[in-house]
């Protein structure tokens, strides 16, 4: 049997080093109110000087019982709730949930709806990555990229607002398709945005990619091997940065991703720098997908034939999509009534956060910040 203790939290494991001076280990409580824990994550650090001996994450400060709420709402009523989990990528959450219920009902969204879904989801991926980049850079001490990314993310949110009236928790899709037809000038807006944002990504890279301090701070920090990633169930850009070319959009295409031509960027070393590069390239790939999609949105209905009252047959379904943070899965159990019997959300942030301990052990306190940032967690999704 392989030794799996290395995957466990090392807060209590390990003997204090007593070979030299009798130095005390320092237990530091990072969070829940801390500028760099992206919300209300609390990390208990065991330190030897500045070196991290072990960590333990204390989560649940933002627990709202989304899964319990789902059991007491109808299928359609639960739809807006999923936006509140990963609130920086609300569109992706909605897409995953709608597709899962559609699968349970055994219906297909019409092609036009699928195109709109892909465009909005990829825009949302861009927005999520931009927010990640800004906050991650801020954690490492570069304060300027934050404002640049927020400036550009604003343009995406404007498109969302024009499309469905909401900027953050969009509730853009409905079970069976989309509720809203694209507004007048939607395609022009998206094309204009593509033109606007392409040089901007270069601008972020100019500030960071070759910056000596940035490279020194991120290269070799929080490295995790592909084997460990898979063992820990880590998905998304973190997994890809470790060299595993795995993206659900390609592996098990959903919506109509199979129609688009894009690449899966991967890294080599699985360190923070690679994760940064993977996400930067992913942003470019997203732009590519949007560019292909926006040119050929077909005419037609945007809503499939969905019964007024959604009552799926008894059964279970698991459907997952590639959210900006990794595999976002919905496991829905139907008992034949109008309300789901059980909805389980497989949150990527929650599972990815588990890798934190392995990634930071033996590194310095400053690296913990960099690694939390690079995992790109959203506490709303971790705690649900």
């Amino acid at each position, binding site marked *: 049997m392989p030794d799996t203790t290395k995957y466990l939290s090392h807060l209590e494991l390990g003997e204090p080093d007593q*070979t*030299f001076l009798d*130095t*005390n280990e320092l237990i530091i409580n990072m969070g829940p109110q801390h500028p760099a824990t992206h919300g209300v994550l609390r990390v208990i650090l065991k330190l030897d000087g500045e070196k991290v001996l072990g960590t333990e994450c204390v989560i649940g400060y933002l627990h709202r019982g989304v899964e319990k709420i789902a059991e007491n709402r109808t299928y359609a009523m639960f739809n807006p709730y999923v936006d509140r989990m990963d609130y920086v990528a609300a569109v992706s959450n909605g897409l995953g949930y709608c597709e899962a219920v559609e699968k349970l009902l055994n219906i297909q969204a019409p092609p036009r709806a699928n195109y709109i879904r892909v465009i909005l989801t990829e825009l949302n991926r861009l927005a999520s990555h931009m927010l990640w980049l800004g906050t991650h850079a801020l954690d490492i001490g570069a304060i300027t990229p934050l404002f640049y990314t927020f400036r550009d993310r604003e343009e995406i949110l404007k498109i969302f607002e024009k499309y469905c009236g909401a900027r953050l928790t969009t509730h853009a899709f409905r079970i069976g398709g989309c509720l809203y037809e694209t507004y007048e000038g939607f395609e022009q807006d998206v094309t204009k945005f593509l033109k606007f944002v392409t040089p901007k990504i270069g601008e972020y890279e100019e500030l960071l990619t070759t910056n000596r301090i940035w490279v020194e701070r991120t290269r070799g920090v929080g490295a995790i091997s592909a084997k460990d990633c898979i063992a820990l169930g880590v998905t998304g850009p973190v997994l890809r940065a470790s060299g595993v070319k795995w993206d659900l959009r390609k592996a098990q295409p959903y919506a109509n991703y199979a129609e688009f031509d894009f690449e899966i960027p991967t890294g080599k070393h699985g360190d923070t720098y690679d994760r940064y590069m993977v996400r930067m390239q992913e942003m470019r790939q997203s732009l590519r997908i949007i560019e292909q999609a926006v040119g050929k949105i077909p005419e037609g209905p945007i809503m499939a034939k969905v019964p007024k009252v959604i009552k799926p047959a008894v059964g279970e379904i698991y459907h997952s999509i590639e959210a900006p943070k990794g595999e976002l899965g919905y496991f829905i159990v139907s008992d034949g009534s109008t309300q789901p019997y059980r909805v389980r959300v497989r949150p990527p942030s929650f599972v990815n956060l588990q890798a934190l301990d392995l990634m930071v052990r033996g590194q310095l306190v400053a690296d913990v910040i960099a690694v939390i940032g690079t995992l790109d967690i959203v506490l709303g999704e971790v705690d649900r």
Partner: protein
Amino acid sequence: MQPVATTFFFYLLSGLAVFSGVLVITRRNPVHSALSLIVTLLALAGLYLMLYAPFVAGVQIILYAGGIMVLFLFVIMLVSIERAQKEETFSKLWLVGIVAAVALGGLFLGMFEKGQAMFPEHVLKLPEESNTQQIAVLLYGNYMFAFEIASLLLLVAIIGAVVMAKKRI
């Protein structure tokens, strides 16, 4: 430049030095002791200034107060204060301590009494401006050999420290 209120400053500084020196050995909290020691060192720097040795005073501040004592504090801060406070301030060797203090005091007094004739009534006042140059000439001219030996000794100590620390890694 004419010195102002020399006697006043002399007694002020020496009083401060003695007072904080006493604090160094009586404080239970090691950080307080270290801080008192810094005050002592600064008072000494003031005394050097009064002796028209500004360079020595400056070096005293930079090296002792700004450098060495910071490293002292660095170590002391990491030591658990609770344990240090429980330990007895004066060890059982206080008898030896008193004997040593008396002997040292006697030596000083003896020197003061007997040696008064050796010192001239008025020390030759060097101009303040040339103090630094004087030191340089002495260190790098007359006592060149001793100076180099001392620096070699320090180098050995540094290498020793590195080697000892390296072992642990």
